[in-house]
């Protein structure tokens, strides 16, 4: 347990992170920081002082799912040991990226932190000093994983759910952690936090229960909005799409460097466009809206970690999260796959069982 003093838990955690860097537990540390008022971004810190001055480890905002920038920064000819303070959905996305061979995990030291939710980034900018009136993003309101996975990466988990601001922060070391590193961390002289750990687990159970019922309700509502109208119902929900592909860019697991929708597969000759328009009387432009979104669902829904960044990125406010979350629940349920749980679980599309599904 990290004791929390009068300056609050943000200060206590910042100091802890800075020490990890100073003591050489990590060679660099990725943390959320506030470079200008109201704006949160990530910093790969080499200087512990920069962490002390700028880190915002508890800022309830996710400018980008951190898995993507961290994966990019540490995967090309990796060296050293890189720490990264990440939220549960960021860690789960990072696990998926490792399995998709888009991230090199060997030199990562992940510091997972409980997250009860994040708010819209614009709203945060306007009200970052007084967050009481803000509500969480939809994806966070129904998030079933407010705690980081236990064994996804070597590192530390920081627990605080159910503990009031002044009580302390729980630190747990991952099982596979190098004993030398574990020794250094233990020398920081923590108190045992068994009582607090019990409180956290109880609070976590209550929170998950509550979230689960909200999640079911949320997805039922999303299904109802399709009105059983089939393709037309889906087309109506996506009618405003301008084809900017921001959802794909914001999606941490949609990893192709060159997406098929950016190539010339769907670049038609005028005669083809006219023929297609002729068949239906006309054609929406920009086109291939449903094809694009349904293709993303087919390709990526198994790895969807439900972070909701697709919806956050949409400039025309399409409610993408309920669509993706509903589809992902079904496809992941079908193949009994839990994205982000462990690096050991195989990606469902890379494997198969002989005695499953139809036809046989």
């Amino acid at each position, binding site marked *: 347990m990290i004791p929390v003093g009068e300056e609050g838990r943000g200060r206590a955690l910042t100091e802890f992170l800075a020490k990890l860097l100073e003591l050489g537990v990590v060679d660099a540390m990725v943390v959320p920081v506030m470079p200008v008022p109201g704006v949160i971004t990530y910093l790969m810190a080499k200087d512990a002082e920069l962490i002390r001055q700028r880190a915002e480890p508890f800022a309830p905002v996710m400018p980008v799912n951190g898995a993507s920038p961290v994966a990019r920064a540490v995967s090309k000819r990796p060296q050293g040991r890189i720490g990264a303070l990440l939220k549960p959905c960021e860690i789960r996305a990072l696990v998926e990226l490792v399995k998709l061979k888009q991230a090199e995990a060997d030199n990562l030291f992940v510091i997972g932190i409980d997250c009860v939710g994040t708010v819209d980034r614009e709203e945060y900018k306007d009200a970052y000093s007084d967050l009481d009136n803000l509500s969480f993003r939809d994806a966070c309101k129904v998030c079933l994983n407010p705690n980081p996975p236990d064994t996804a990466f070597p590192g530390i988990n920081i627990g605080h759910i159910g503990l009031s601001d002044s009580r302390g922060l729980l630190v747990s070391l991952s099982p596979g952690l190098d004993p030398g590193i574990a020794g250094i961390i233990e020398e920081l002289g923590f108190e045992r936090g068994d009582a607090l750990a019990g409180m956290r687990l109880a609070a976590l159970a209550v929170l998950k229960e509550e979230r689960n019922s909200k999640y079911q309700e949320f997805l039922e509502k999303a299904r109802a909005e399709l009105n059983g109208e089939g393709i037309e119902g889906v087309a109506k929900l996506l009618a405003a799409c301008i084809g900017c592909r921001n959802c794909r860019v914001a999606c941490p697991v949609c990893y192709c460097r060159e997406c098929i929708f950016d190539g010339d597969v769907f670049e038609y000759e005028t005669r083809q466009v006219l023929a297609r328009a002729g*068949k239906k009387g006309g054609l929406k432009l920009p086109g291939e809206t449903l094809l694009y979104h349904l293709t993303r669902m087919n390709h990526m829904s198994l790895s969807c970690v439900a972070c909701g960044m697709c919806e956050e990125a949409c400039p025309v406010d399409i409610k993408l999260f309920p669509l993706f979350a509903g589809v992902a629940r079904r496809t992941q349920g*079908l193949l009994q796959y839990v994205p982000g749980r462990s690096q050991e679980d195989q990606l469902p599309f890379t494997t198969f069982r002989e005695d499953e599904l139809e036809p046989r």
Partner: protein
Amino acid sequence: MVLPVSPCAWGVPRIGRGGTEMEASVDFEPKIVAFLCNWCTYTGADLAGVSRIQYPSNVRPIRVMCSGSVDPMYIVKALLDGADGVLVGGCHAGDCHYVSGNYKARRRLAVLREVLDELGISSERVWFKFISASEGALFAETIREMVDSLKVLGPNPAKAVWFT
């Protein structure tokens, strides 16, 4: 014979005739796009031909090297553009020329069905069959069954939705 029916259930809107009145022919002939694996089902379809087995001419075959190479994207595209049915044909379990392409296709197709069903789009228009090179009769039978089933389902409603 021509029957007026409710919008979106049948056929294409008749533009320039006022309103959204639809017309549908009871002699509806479904169009089936079939992705057939080179090593088994395509050869099976060929055998049906050389054996002079009669089957409906509703199918438009596309030869692919393996059912595992059929990205669900192309199935979705066919459905959105108004194909009444899509058939994917692969080798029998254990017989894939590339060892396991058909098993992987089976997973992709199963996931595609879940996606479609969750969004309220009928996945009954998508068929996946294992048909070997020697099963010309099975290929013909499959097409007959599929045509019958699609006639019951009616034309693909996507034909009338232009804002996809």
